[in-house]
């Protein structure tokens, strides 16, 4: 089987603004890839492109063998995207939200309970309206959708953002377990240490392009100062697009 994701000079536009200015990237089956880069580098857009949400303007992009220029629909059912927005309905309970997503994706409803439990959303939270959840709980609910849909490819955009220590650990465990069972994971994160430990490979993104790729242990990529502040932050703080910004543009 070929690569799960295969991009060549992919350009994506939002109106006249280039979100991606020519990305070349391959992700193999079962790999865990960590995207890093400053705010506005194009990490989220890259994930959204791979999820079939953002159209491609030039270059080529194949995800799971589907040509994204011709067909963005078929990709969507097979990937699970955790975006900045939670894709949840405020006026539905957590369980209803997850059930809706699972049934929409034609996945097995038995995965719902397991996913909710693994993300600590069992019990009382289960029947709580999403609108009354805290930001962190909302994030977990969104993750629960990705897990419950049993997509074999995960695209996680800042999965740690806004979570408390337990939540972060839960995310790490989820990714490890998923990876162990052969799931391909691409995650964008500012938590270099945490994400770096999870990843098989680190890809640096800047200016809408991939600027460097290396093994996480390779010198030069992780050489930048690990930002200690990111770990110690108040975990309840809402940091959707990375208020915990890494200051050093330590790419290559």
């Amino acid at each position, binding site marked *: 089987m070929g690569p799960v994701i295969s991009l060549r000079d992919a350009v994506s536009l939002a109106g006249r603004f280039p979100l991606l200015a020519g990305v070349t990237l391959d992700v193999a089956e079962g790999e865990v890839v960590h995207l890093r880069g400053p705010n506005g580098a194009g990490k989220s857009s890259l994930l959204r492109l791979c999820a079939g949400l953002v159209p491609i303007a030039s270059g080529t992009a194949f995800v799971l063998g589907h040509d994204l220029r011709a067909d963005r*629909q078929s990709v*969507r059912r097979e990937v699970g995207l955790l*975006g900045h*927005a939670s*894709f*949840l*309905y*405020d006026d539905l309970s957590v369980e209803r939200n997850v059930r809706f997503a699972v049934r929409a994706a034609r996945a097995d409803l038995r995965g719902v309970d397991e996913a909710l439990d693994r993300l600590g959303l069992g019990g009382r939270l289960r029947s709580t309206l999403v609108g009354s959840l805290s930001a962190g709980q909302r994030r977990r609910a969104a993750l629960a959708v990705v897990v419950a849909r049993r997509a074999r490819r995960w695209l996680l955009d800042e999965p740690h953002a806004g979570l408390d220590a337990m939540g972060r650990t839960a995310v790490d465990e989820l990714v490890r377990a998923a990876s162990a069972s052969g799931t391909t994971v691409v995650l964008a994160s500012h938590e270099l240490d945490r994400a770096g430990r999870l990843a098989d490979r680190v890809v640096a993104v800047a200016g809408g392009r991939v600027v460097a790729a290396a093994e996480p242990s390779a010198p030069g990529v992780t050489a930048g100062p690990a930002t200690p502040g990111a770990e110690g932050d108040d975990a309840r703080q809402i940091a959707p697009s990375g208020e915990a910004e890494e200051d050093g543009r330590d790419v290559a």
Partner: protein
Amino acid sequence: MWRDALLVAGKDLRIEARSKVGLGQVVPFALVVVLLFGLALGPAAGRGSVLSLAAPGLYWVAVLLATVLAVQRSFAIEALDGASDGLKLSGLDPAGIFVGKAAAVCGQLLALEVVLAGAVALLYDRHLAGGLLLVASCLAATVGLVSVGTIYGVVSSGSRQRETLLPLLFFPMVAPILLAATKAWDAALAGTPGRGTGWLDVLAVFAVAYLAMGTVAFGPLLEDA
């Protein structure tokens, strides 16, 4: 597609049941419109007054106004917190989404029409005769209205000026519905349903045409929203 439509309609109706925007805001709004017509067109001085004569037309104008609100609400749900991206990601059949959303709005509107009909009969002093034609024209007209509304709802949901754009697009389109539904009700209330059946055909043609159009066009339109 039908499975997806059921799923989406169930979801939308469940959200409505929780939030009660339709019941708490759209129905009262329509009642206010009915009252305002009463104020504008003078007190009903028995049969033959302007209000009583114009009752069918006023009723349908009130329904049209309420439809815009209901459709806007239907897409406001999806616009909240990136849910319209979620709809795209969900892998649901776009035609199913269209039918489901339209069906949910349709159900809400039909309930509203019942309430509104009672209000019109009461306030405008018009006896609701010719039940079958009334119900049939309501059904056909509502399907047409909601189909057009849902098509344009998704078109305008991509725009920042969606609140103003939707009525501009919607009202000229449904002028034939307003005409035909008013005429059908006129005939039914006047006790000459034979004159109204032709108008029912117009409503049915419109409903079928735009329902079909929506199922085809919704996919590409959702992509662009």
